[in-house]
């Protein structure tokens, strides 16, 4: 593990930058939505080291989320049913955004809603703020209404993409769910309607039962499965979607190391997000960035495109 590598030191030889939807990230490592908080993650590392931060989902009005337990551990993974608790977009703009802007990194805001109208209200408010990209979460399995249905049906995915694109100037990235028969259909629908990128994957819908207490571990019964156990599904989907659409892909799902990040790039991702790994190791996003740099040096890659082109 390499620590505290100074970005500048390598600039002469290594170019880690990537352009996503017209926005240049200085490196491809971002935080996965829902696993990062500026104040708390910032207590462990310098957020300015990252290519971008992706915030937790924000909605038009405050959301309360689900009752607890919201977290369960599984073999090489975890389930969560946070249910998108958030203080609402106005609170976000007032309290969280200024802190995020104080770092030297791009800001991608994850947006959630229960109806198309919800999404629209939120993105309109964000469009005038000093954010870089909006990531539209049409894939959360933890809320009862909306959410999942948008991402599971190409027609709905198309409609919501179209409506949002009509409203905003900022680039939008559609975040896709893996809980579908054919993820390329959804990605193609989003691309067709003008999405500036897609990010995948969100969590797999899962469940755990406590056989001693005789009940589901999560209050919400089901939750989203994340972590290294789902990486093979994520890699397959990134690989498939890369061959189906031309817009940028943010790849995520189980990235724990720099080599995992490289695997997503080779599969076709333009950038990556680190989620569960940041719960397992609070400094993971920065560690993974540094490990990716080490991987590139050892294997003599000069930029990310060379990794993306490497797959035989």
């Amino acid at each position, binding site marked *: 593990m390499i620590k505290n590598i100074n970005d500048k030191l390598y600039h002469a030889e290594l170019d880690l930058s990537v352009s996503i939807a017209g926005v240049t990230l200085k490196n491809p490592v971002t935080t996965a939505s829902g*696993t990062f908080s500026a104040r708390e*993650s910032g207590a462990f590392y310098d957020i300015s080291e990252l290519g971008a931060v992706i915030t937790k989902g924000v909605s038009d009005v405050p959301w309360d989320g689900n009752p607890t337990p*919201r*977290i369960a551990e599984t073999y*090489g993974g975890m389930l969560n049913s946070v249910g998108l*608790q958030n203080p609402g977009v106005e609170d976000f703009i007032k309290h969280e955004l200024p802190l995020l802007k104080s770092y030297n990194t791009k800001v991608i805001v994850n947006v959630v809603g229960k109806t198309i109208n919800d999404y629209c209200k939120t993105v309109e408010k964000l469009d005038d703020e000093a954010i870089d990209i909006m990531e539209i979460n049409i894939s959360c399995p933890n809320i009862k209404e909306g959410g999942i249905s948008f991402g599971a049906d190409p027609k709905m995915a198309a409609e919501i993409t179209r409506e949002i694109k009509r409203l905003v100037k900022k680039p939008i990235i559609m975040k896709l769910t893996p809980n579908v028969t054919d993820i390329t259909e959804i990605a193609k629908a989003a691309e067709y309607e003008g999405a500036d990128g897609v990010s995948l994957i969100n969590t797999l819908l899962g469940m755990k039962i406590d056989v001693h207490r005789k009940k589901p571990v999560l209050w919400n019964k089901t939750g989203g499965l994340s972590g290294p156990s789902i990486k093979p599904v994520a890699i397959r989907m990134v690989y498939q979607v890369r061959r189906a659409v031309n817009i940028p892909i943010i790849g995520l799902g189980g990235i724990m190391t720099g080599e995992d990040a490289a695997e997503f790039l080779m599969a076709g991702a333009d950038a990556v997000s680190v989620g569960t790994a*940041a*719960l*397992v190791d609070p400094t993971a996003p920065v560690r993974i960035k540094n490990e990716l740099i080490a991987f590139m040096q050892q294997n003599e890659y000069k930029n990310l495109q060379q990794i993306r082109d490497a797959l035989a």
Partner: protein
Amino acid sequence: MFKKIIEAEIIENKKIAEGIYRMAVKAPETAADARAGQFVNIYLRNKIMLLPRPISISRVYDDVITLIYKIAGKGTGELSAYLPGEPVRISTSLGNGFQLEDVFKETDSNHNLNKVKIIALVGGGMGVAPLVGLAQKIMNEKEKRSFKDDDLQVIAIVGFQDEPILMKEFETCCNHVYIATESGSTGLKGNVLQLIERKGLKPDYCFACGPRPMLKALANRCENANIPLQVSLEERMGCGYGACVGCVCRIKAKEEGVKSIRKKVCTDGPVFFGNEVVWDD
């Protein structure tokens, strides 16, 4: 100062009761700013278990912290097999501990002003672990302020299923130790609430840690008797440092128009005032 995950050295890892262990860990960076009621994340070796295990800091001596834990599953089972001399990956101290400031706020210069004459530390089961550190801390504060027992008494009111733990530690730091056990094997047969009732205990300030039903009943009692209460809550955690919003509890809102909001146990707590908590969540 950045928070950190550090490789600490195990000094001791000893069974102190059936299924219960005390681990002493040399961890200068954790010990430096640890306060009673805070906890550490322990990161396991078996990588099929990804999530850290939160364990309260029981006591701090110089650069050593002690943890008291019960084998509750595979993770704590793994811990129990660690040997002195081996490394253990832990975080620096997390969460907000008990606020002693609140007790001493009116007594800084002149202890005659002190309204709190009796502090009760109410613990149930493993909940006694952080209270030992708190008892120690209060004793130190008393000395610093040259309080006599007439000025301030500390009593421990602790309940267990069957086998009491940490009794010597409480006895050293407290003026009285009251014990209840469900089995009746030691002290009163019953729970801490019954113990308080039976002994007619009337503390001026309470600190508590234990199972939620105990905390809820105690909060109710304290509210009725107008006794300030700080409780340490437990909830299943993902990250333990505030990133995942997994570990919430419901807290009465201060703003108008909103009844209550969900706060994170790991960073907003684990210690809250008893009357802030919405117990029927």
